[in-house]
């Protein structure tokens, strides 16, 4: 039925023999230092420098496929892998703890692919700290870099679903709709109801999502001694807050920003009353509180033990 068709003599029949792809691919070569290839690292590095030069502005980048799922810290991981090198000491935390499964997984990947990088639980020892949802309790130093994993980088998404529009609003610093939204929130709920990932104004220019850190941690971004880098892999955005930069939570004079209230509560382990606490439901329905920053808590416990032993 199709035999009388014209022919294409240019294409040899051999073209249709199934190629043996496994033979072509061969054994996978050893991974490059820090997993990412150099072209990818360069692109991330260029994006990071522009991000630092324009505080709070989201630089688009071509996020690569990582061996961890998108939405599980692939953005922060790409930033970390493009930044670290031999001699660095890396701390990875999730929800404040080094032992969280996601933190362990990311740390393990770095250990596997970046020889010469030490890992630590200690905040003071770390040169780079990658985190999901928290800052360490203790203030960071100028020689430390904070890397935050970001699920949703766009703070204007709450008022506008479209990227093409939010980009324009940022371009013109047209934040009227955000303020109206916050005002309506106060009218309806009696306060600005945003819990974590609270929107902030960076350097008086860009409204920025600080990643889903609690309000407790917002102040750690303001006029910090250290550099903070934020990476969103799935959304393909990189942004930054340089040290000594103004980071101000959005609020109203008569409805001021307030952090989570732990008054009257203390860590059941180290006794701290000045830390962000995890609430734990115990048998019988009672509540127990413990430091979210477990490394900080551990240090307090062992310091107290030493004092006791010395006595």
């Amino acid at each position: 039925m199709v035999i009388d068709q014209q022919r294409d003599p240019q294409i040899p029949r051999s073209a249709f023999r199934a190629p043996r792809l496994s033979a072509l691919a061969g054994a996978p070569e050893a991974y490059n230092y820090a997993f990412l290839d150099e072209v990818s690292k360069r692109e991330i590095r260029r994006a990071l420098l522009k991000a630092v030069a324009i505080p709070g502005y989201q630089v688009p980048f071509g996020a690569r496929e990582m061996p961890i799922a998108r939405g599980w810290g692939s953005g922060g991981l790409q930033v970390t892998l493009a930044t670290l090198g031999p001699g660095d000491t890396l701390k990875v935390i999730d929800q404040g703890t080094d032992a969280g499964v996601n933190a362990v997984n990311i740390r393990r990947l770095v250990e596997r692919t970046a020889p010469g990088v030490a890992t630590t639980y200690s905040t003071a020892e770390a040169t780079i700290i990658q985190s999901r949802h928290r800052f360490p309790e203790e203030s960071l130093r100028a020689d430390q870099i904070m890397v935050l994993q970001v699920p949703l980088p766009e703070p204007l998404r709450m008022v506008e679903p479209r990227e093409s529009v939010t980009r324009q609003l940022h371009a013109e610093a047209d934040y009227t709709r955000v303020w109206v939204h916050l005002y309506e929130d106060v009218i309806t709920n009696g306060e600005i109801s945003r819990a974590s990932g609270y929107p902030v104004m960076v350097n008086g220019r860009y409204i920025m999502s600080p990643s889903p850190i609690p309000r407790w941690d917002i102040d750690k971004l303001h006029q910090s001694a250290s550099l903070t880098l934020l990476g969103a892999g799935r959304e393909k955005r990189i942004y930054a807050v340089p040290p000594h930069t103004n980071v101000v939570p959005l609020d109203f004079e008569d409805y001021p920003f307030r952090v989570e209230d732990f008054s009257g509560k203390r860590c059941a382990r180290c006794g701290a009353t000045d830390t962000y606490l995890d609430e734990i439901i115990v048998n019988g329905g009672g509540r127990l509180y413990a430091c979210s920053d477990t490394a900080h808590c551990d240090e307090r416990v062992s310091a107290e033990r030493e004092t006791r032993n010395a006595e």
Partner: protein
Amino acid sequence: MGYTAVKGGLDAILAAEALISAGDGRLNAAQVGRGARLLIDQVMGEGGLYAPELAALAIAQAEGDPIEAAFLLRAYRSTLPRIGYTLPSDGRRMRVLRRISSTFKDIPGGQVLGRTRDYTQRLLDVDGRFAAKARAAAPPATAIGGEGWPVFPSVVDALREEGLVRQTTDDPTEPADITRDALRFPAPRSARLQALARGETGFMVAIGYSAQRGLGAAHPTIAELRSGELPLQIRHPLTHDPVVLGAVSLVEVEMINHTAGGVGGATIVGGEGESSERFDLGYGLAFGRNERKAIAMSIIDASMNIPSNSGPAADEEFVLSHCDALESSGFVEHLKLPHYVTFQSALDRVRFRRLAQLSAERGTRNAE
């Protein structure tokens, strides 16, 4: 108090890995390669890598989860060096194994039904009897002889010659690459087609279906669906002559779309001195035999090509931002990660408001 910080993360992860590898009786890659060809096609498409053997391996390793398999394929792909780019290929050069058109009863070159399940009766073949009967009843196959392969003219070309199809402008610039540059909106058509070609089959079908149900102005008819093998060429690094590398198995769909003026919110504006009455075209392409996805893709592309169209399928930013299987499943499943820090923050807000409410109510009662 007995609470100590959980330190078991690493042990738990290692134990979970051990449980996975302890599974027995699973398929090997060769079995998948023989028995799950359509799954391989889907995984290659969503993984963005044409590699049937590796896809089979990924499916075996992922215990048949297509998204997990696509993920393995993509993560592997990102470690491979990019050696070169193929030259533009024309679907007309495809070695056709199947080809149908719904727009005309007969078409130059004829309709070729090929290997399809479309007209099988969906009866679960419990004891293999139906398959045996089908084999016995098969008419003798028609062999294609001679040098080279037949070239089929494109159905859409005939409509183009008559001026019935809205001209798409040939874009001479290098196509976009969404794996290298983040998408921007509005996206160039090359970026759109790339994103859709990597899109998740189920999502694409649902969105295409919504356009068919009348959400938007699309009224699609398949001008031509052809599947077969398309040879790919590169330029030889030394001689700069085109060299055939091999062929990939593909299904290509050209979708004709008739939009009555004003239907579904579309306004059709013709160029100067020409009739506004034109068909819009949509294009779909998928690896292997994933016809369902290629058809859905062509409906979505057509929907986006209709000027001033509305509805989910025409919403380019919405579709392209949500069609990737790895992005959507990654974020949906990341909810399995602990979120207790953010939840604590939310608890604080809710308790604060409840307290405020309660004291306000009490205040009102007291005042009464």
